[in-house]
């Protein structure tokens, strides 16, 4: 099975998020970037497929040169080769547009990615890629097996689970459950050494389509100081709720 795993390069969850002074982009100073955790579940599941049935696992990222360490990490974990599509991932549509031509040319059997990236949480790319390619799509996938070119996938739905079948090639948007956290792999030193010589191909951007543009980012307003009201002063409480909080 020829598998493609789409990897997003995102700030580590413990990072302190700041924006540039014009408020238009993320200030990346001092931020450590990691493989998007949802994509890590996808990568691990892809490696399991490869180890069981053979085939290959390619990782791809749409981004500039600064994302290459993240791809190298995916290679150190076990992917066979990596591709970076040299474009700024401005929005979900831009990323999806870059990915479809690669997927169509390389004829992957299965494309797995996280259901969303933890930076902008757009949740757009998997669905858009599937729609643009007109391929079957399973979202929020928490388990999958493939037999004879047909995938059986379990997906999380409101209050339960749904089992669906689809023929390959297809797009899967995964999350925890596809594999568990304990299954995630830490690369070892040999993997890191091997990653040095695994191919990381850079291909030029093929699409300049931008559908949306970020105008401004803001951090949530800080918490207000807590106002204490004496327990026997109901009138003051009602007054505050009515006039200040405008809740009643």
């Amino acid at each position, binding site marked *: 099975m020829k598998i493609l795993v789409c990897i997003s390069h995102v700030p580590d969850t*413990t990072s302190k998020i700041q924006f540039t002074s014009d408020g238009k982009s993320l200030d990346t100073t001092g931020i*450590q970037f990691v493989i998007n955790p949802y994509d890590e579940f996808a990568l691990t599941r892809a490696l399991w497929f490869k180890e069981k049935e053979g085939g290959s696992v390619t990782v791809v990222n749409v981004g500039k040169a600064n994302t290459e360490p993240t791809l*190298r990490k995916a290679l150190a974990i076990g992917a066979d080769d990596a591709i970076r599509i040299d474009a700024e991932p401005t929005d979900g549509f831009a990323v999806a547009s870059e990915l479809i031509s690669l997927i169509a040319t390389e004829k992957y059997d299965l494309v797995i990615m996280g259901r969303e990236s933890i930076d902008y949480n757009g949740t757009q790319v998997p669905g858009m890629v599937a729609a643009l390619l007109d391929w079957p799509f399973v979202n929020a996938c928490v388990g999958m097996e493939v037999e004879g070119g047909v995938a059986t996938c379990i997906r999380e739905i409101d209050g339960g689970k749904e089992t669906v079948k689809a023929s390959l090639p297809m797009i899967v948007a995964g999350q925890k459950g596809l594999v568990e956290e304990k299954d995630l792999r*830490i*690369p*070892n*030193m040999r993997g*890191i050494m091997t990653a*040095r010589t695994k191919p990381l191909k850079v291909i030029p951007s093929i699409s300049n389509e931008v559908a949306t543009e970020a105008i401004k980012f803001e951090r949530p307003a800080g918490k207000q100081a807590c106002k204490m009201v004496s327990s026997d002063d109901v009138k003051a409480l009602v007054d505050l709720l009515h006039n200040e909080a405008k809740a009643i």
Partner: protein
Amino acid sequence: MATDQFQSPDYYLMDELLSEEHKLVRDTTRNWVKKEVSPIIEDYAQKAEFPKQLVKGLAEVGAFGPYIPTEYGGAGLDQISYGLMMQEIERGDSGVRSTCSVQSSLVMYPIYAYGNEEQRMRFLPKLASGEFLGSFGLTEPNFGSNPGGMITHFKDMGDHYLLNGAKMWISNAPFCDVAVVWAKSEEGRIHGLIVERGMEGFTTPETHNKWSLRASATGELVFDNVKVPKENLLPNKSGLGAPLGCLDSARYGIAWGAIGAAMDCYDTALRYSKERIQFDRPIGGFQLQQKKLAEMITEITKAQLLTFRLGQLKNEGRASTAQISMAKRNNVDMALTICRDARQMLGGMGITGEYPIMRHMMNLESVVTYEGTHDIHLLITGMDVTGLNAFK
């Protein structure tokens, strides 16, 4: 123990000096330590038990012989990568780092550097995979800082060597599968011999009641007429310089490791100082606490720069014994001072096993003594700058 919240201090943006591969090595080791060491280490230290289950993971992550070439099972990494791994492992615990230092620098290194091809192929892959654990026998009950005076000796019996003597304060001794033992020939020349578990007359009694490196096993190596096959003698180097060459490599790793222990204590104290309220404000707002924190981060930053440069020299094969001594001495002392200050900042909480500080502090009491004491390293620097020997 609570979740490991460690955040690495990098005041002078040292990360910019590291390659992407270095950072991947460091972060991988850090993640492994957070996942495997931090949750269990306090319990094992309290029980004075070596967490044997970590051996497999240490081997898998590549902590045994990171700089040994891949054809012998090592990872073939550079010296800065090795240092960063030791830093991260000691951030977890000095005892676990000691196991890696011994395995890599004191067992695998001499077999690689002073052994023949047959010995390398026979032992190195098994040591790298953790199937074998090794120990290093140099120190004796009456010969610590003066190893050249050792009594352990061997006699050529024609088809084998007959080894007699005893070594003391040996990390990993109680369960080692092989020991690289330094002993004098009949001519009084020091040679390295590979002694294997199961050889008749070879015993390894454990040293009990340690207040330090409690999660690491220490013991003796006792040789009572042990018949060592001739093919187990390391042929390519002899004399005191041979074991001292191994110590250079191990001390280099210790210089990095001590930074790990210091960073953990600083990070713990910094976080605590922002959360602990006294006199209605976080104690981090008081001048005396700030003085401690400011001095800690200054010393850590200096040690990071010192060690990074030493790593560059080591990569180029230019790091001298005296330069390595300086880094080992400075960094371990720096780490001990930071542990003690951090312990004070945490007050009574710093005494308990809820926080890693007291464990690090007690561990470092061994680290400041083993692999050349604090005082001996000073004399090495003294001799290097004056050209005059103050040892004897």
